[in-house]
């Protein structure tokens, strides 16, 4: 069931194409993250869905209605901003009631809705305070209550948590997810934080230079990136370049690497991506890919050890290992790396 649909949307500012042919569906009740580096067009896309920006081309549908020409105030959206954007001259209760008033809900009925919304974000005792008397996290929760109380068709969030410190951000993520699940509200969440996107979302859409390069479940996008950009932006990857040869890939060094991915015709250049945590310090198992490399740096990060390595022909490789026995290997040691063809993904460069 599709709730929000963006079809062939394009936007150009002057001579810069900010969005190019964006088509995507946001499934009813799902949590979708728009993930991409700064400047990739996430905010522009979100604001086109909200109605703050008119696309040059394309159609935006909310529910069964084409809203491309409907102004913001007529779209029934819930919006959350990075700067909270509470009305500073109104109490918390007045802030939350603002959208209800616009819908003709006043007096006791409004009071009841406001109370329920504040209860939902665990701020029941705060109705009569002013926004500036609240902490950043509390203000953001008021903003969420204000957006949710109008029962919007879609909840739009533009990096709402990036102004909060790490601990508070994690708390808010849990809160947001709980409220989203309870309400079953279609949610579109803009972020440049890949971890946030992976933990929160049902669907991740990766944007690069104004295009959606890949969409899917977090695990699917992470395990099977289709482009070099996606493999690099979402998590870490090692890239191996080579030529297709008899159903495998021969690297420049002569090493043959096997992959479970479909490969193009013999002789074609391909890029393979391997996640650093999928590589292992060799146990000599058969049926795996193997590389010899020298350790150049060991990074101790508590539960995980990162090794930066270099192969004899000068290629850099990164490996993440669980910290089971502390630091055993050191800089200058030469080791063998093992990894499965299953974890060797051919990506478009």
């Amino acid at each position, binding site marked *: 069931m599709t709730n929000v649909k963006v079809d062939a949307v394009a936007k150009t500012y002057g001579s810069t194409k900010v969005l190019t042919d964006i088509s995507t569906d946001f499934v009813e009740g799902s949590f979708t993250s728009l993930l991409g580096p700064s400047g990739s067009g996430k905010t522009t896309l979100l604001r086109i869905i909200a109605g*703050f920006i008119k696309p040059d081309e394309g159609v935006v549908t909310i529910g069964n209605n084409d809203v491309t020409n409907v*102004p913001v105030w007529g779209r029934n959206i819930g*919006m959350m*901003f990075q700067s909270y954007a509470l*009305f*500073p*001259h109104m109490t918390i209760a007045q802030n939350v009631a603002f959208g209800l008033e*616009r819908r003709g809900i006043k007096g006791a009925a409004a009071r009841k809705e406001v109370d329920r919304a504040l209860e939902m974000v665990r701020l029941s005792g705060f109705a009569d305070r002013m926004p500036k008397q609240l902490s950043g996290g509390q203000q953001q929760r008021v903003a969420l209550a204000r*957006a949710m109380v*109008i029962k919007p068709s879609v909840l739009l969030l533009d990096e709402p948590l990036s102004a909060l410190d790490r601990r508070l951000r994690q708390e808010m993520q849990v809160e947001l997810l709980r409220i989203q699940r309870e309400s079953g509200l279609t949610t579109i969440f803009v972020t440049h934080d890949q971890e946030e996107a992976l933990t929160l979302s049902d669907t991740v859409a990766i944007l690069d230079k104004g295009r959606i390069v890949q969409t899917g479940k977090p695990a699917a996008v992470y395990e099977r990136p289709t482009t070099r950009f996606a493999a690099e932006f979402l998590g870490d990857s090692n890239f191996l370049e080579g030529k297709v040869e008899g159903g495998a890939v021969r690297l420049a060094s002569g090493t043959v690497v096997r992959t479970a991915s479909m490969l193009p015709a013999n002789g074609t250049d391909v890029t393979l991506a391997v996640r650093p945590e999928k590589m292992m310090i060799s146990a000599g198992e058969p049926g795996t890919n193997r590389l010899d490399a020298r350790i150049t740096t060991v990074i101790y990060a508590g539960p995980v050890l990162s090794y930066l390595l270099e192969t004899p022909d000068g290629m850099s490789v990164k490996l993440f290992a669980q910290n089971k026995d502390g630091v055993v290997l050191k800089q200058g040691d030469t080791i063998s790396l093992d990894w499965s063809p299953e974890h060797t993904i051919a990506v478009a460069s």
Partner: protein
Amino acid sequence: MRSDSLLNEAVRGPSGPRKHRMLPSWVATTALLLPTYAWLTLAVLLPLLTMLVFSFMSATPMGKAPITFTLKHYRAFIDQPYLLNIGWTSLVIGFWTTLLCAIFGFLAAVALARATVGRMRETLLILILLPFWTNGLVRVFSWTMVLRENGFLDNVLHMFFADAGSISFLYSRYAIVLGLVHGYLPYMILTCYIALVTIDDAIIEAAASLGARWWTILFRILIPMATPGLISGAVLTFVPVIGSFMEPRILGGKVGVTMGTVIEDQFTQAFNWPLGAALSFTLLAVVLAIFATFSGVLRRGAAA
């Protein structure tokens, strides 16, 4: 070195890292504020005080008449009841000028604060400041050219309706208010603009996303949030307008008798400085009383 540490003190406060080498913070604060207060004393308090002394004298101290202490000038409103009418006229003119300035000034400030296209904001700002750069007398006289019979206004009207009569309203209170609004509008625009530019765009967008149309945004968000700007603009307009004499004289003609012109007459024509001074202070007291009432009402309004 000395003044350097003084500055550091003022900037970082008494808990700054170089505390052990510094003077107590009140010394720095006093030192920094002293020039301001000295200037205020010289430029505002002393002249005001001189005028206050004048207002209790029986005659202007430059004539031959002996000077004695008297309160009679403060009885002017009782002894000469026609002054009450004139005072009322001034208040009415002040009220309408301030109200019109507030309405047009606020809307202009909104346009200015929200103008984002190219160099629109700079252009608008220059257009708004233009009256500031013109000599006040020239500005007011040019209105007489526009408003008089067979003036610019009538000519434009007759271009479209050849048989129409004159719509000249020179030498009326409308003309006075028009001239005053023109002169004082920039103050209102600037004070409102300063208040409006500090409003985060996201606040307006949040209101729109919740279903607010432009008038709701104007009356529920922009005006309440920019009230400090409106109030300072109103004060900056009302006070000088009440005492203005150039616009009433030139644009008001016979009907242009206001407290401003009466007071000016005492200084330039009647050579009765004490009466002029006493009338000024009476007017000041009335204005302060109005503001006091008004701020009380505002505070109660905000508390409710």
